[in-house]
């Protein structure tokens, strides 16, 4: 009987005894939503994304996402954790491309160092590199792209540098999933009202290099719409639920 008790304890932490029912102190608030990936010109849907955000009591945020971009043959699972100020803490990702698993990776940021460990069909690859204080990750769900704006100085305005570690979206060749660091111009255009199938939102409108328009709402920087005109892409929030 004692042995059985021990195994049960290992199996399901959830069945251990508890003292009293309470709200979960580790969830300050949550939100979940879905995007449709559309063609700007035709409105045709070429993919979808589902995400779930948890805001923790220390202000850190965990975003769990999955997306599929059917025309390109992509399917990804990504979990992205950021600090209270939205600076990246870690990303984990699983990429499938055109019917093949291309890799599972962990990208952890400690101070000014990013360490990546990626398991691929060809073996393990590792990367250690320095990163600046002001930077973000692009693991390729759309929902977390809104967090790239976290250090933009609205009071100063105008075009400001936005530095990103952009993971290889196609997980190609031997450097599968590893990213490149580059800097683009980010500009705050203004505050607007925007209506999507998910509702009507007051959004901050940002432009990236005059080619991408991002519309972002609320204290958790939830992406409402992402228009990428040269690529004929329109990513639209189609559902949103929030809770405390």
């Amino acid at each position, binding site marked *: 009987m004692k042995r059985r008790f021990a195994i*049960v304890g*290992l199996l399901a932490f*959830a069945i251990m005894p508890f003292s009293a029912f309470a709200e*979960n102190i580790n969830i300050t608030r949550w939100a979940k939503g879905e995007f449709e990936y559309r063609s700007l010109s035709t409105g045709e849907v070429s993919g*979808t994304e589902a995400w779930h955000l948890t805001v*923790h009591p220390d202000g850190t945020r965990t975003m769990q996402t999955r997306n599929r971009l059917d025309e390109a*043959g992509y399917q990804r699972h990504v979990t992205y954790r950021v600090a209270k100020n939205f600076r990246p803490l870690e990303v984990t990702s699983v990429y499938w491309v055109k019917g093949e698993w291309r890799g599972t990776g962990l990208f952890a940021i400690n101070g000014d160092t990013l360490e990546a460990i990626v398991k691929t069909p060809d073996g393990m690859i590792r990367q250690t590199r320095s990163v600046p204080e002001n930077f973000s990750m692009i693991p390729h769900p759309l929902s977390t792209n809104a967090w790239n704006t976290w250090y933009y100085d609205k009071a100063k305005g105008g075009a400001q540098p936005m530095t990103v570690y952009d993971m290889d979206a196609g997980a190609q060749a031997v450097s599968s999933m590893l990213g490149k660091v580059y800097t683009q111009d980010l500009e705050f255009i203004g505050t607007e009202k925007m209506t999507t199938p998910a509702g009507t939102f007051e959004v901050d409108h940002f432009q990236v290099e005059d080619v991408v328009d991002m519309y972002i709402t609320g204290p958790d920087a939830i992406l409402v719409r992402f228009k990428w005109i040269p690529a004929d892409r329109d990513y639209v929030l189609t559902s949103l639920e929030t809770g405390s």
Partner: protein
Amino acid sequence: MRHLIKTAYRTALMAPLLLWSAFAAAQTGDSEGPNTNILRWASGTYAYTTLTEPRDRGWERFHMNVYTDGSRAMNMWHDLSARDAQFTVILRVNDAFRPQEAFLSYWVANGFKGSTLIRVEDATLSASANGPAGLHNQTLTVPATFSIGTHPVSADGWHLASDSGENGAEQTSKIYSLEASADLTKPPLGTLRDLTFKRIGEETLTVPAGTFETIHYDLSGSQVWVTKQDRLMVRMINERFDRDYVLTEFASGSNGEKIE
């Protein structure tokens, strides 16, 4: 009239079962839908309650993709409010349910416990945990048949993948079970333990999410009912600890349906 209502009710209950059976036809194969990677998918929500009252203890949601090579990836998120725990997990297994990788991020009653990446290559399991306890690495030799216990219940049916199919026989397996206590000095790394289970038999089970063709097991003292092909948990109860985990919402589809 009463007969019609009863028939409609039965049909509604059977719909998820019929749907699930239809998608349960293929283990591997080419994608027939717009995404070349996904064979089929399923998602659902569980309610955690006590058995006796019942009293709310939390909830969990999952999403599983089955890929063209038969491998599976399960996203899990749980809110175990009764213990102030919140776990975010992804687990990937091959077509025989053998773990390939897992990532977990644990919040427990005392705060953030850490994040862990687990990789399995042949007979070697490597885990790296990062959190308040610091960075810890672990390497273990694992057998051909084992599973990973990450603590949300969605994937607990995968512990039973080595089932011989013989009703009533005591069976054993191994589980790499993650440390998940509120003690922040202990990193979320695992230990390899023995696991015993007994197949009770096939049963049709109705839960709030619908009616399912299941296999009933005694899993180390817990009664569990899992679907046949993807071994998804439909219900788990433990009378000794007064626990009930039940599937309350369920959806599934083939790759042909774009919106998950």
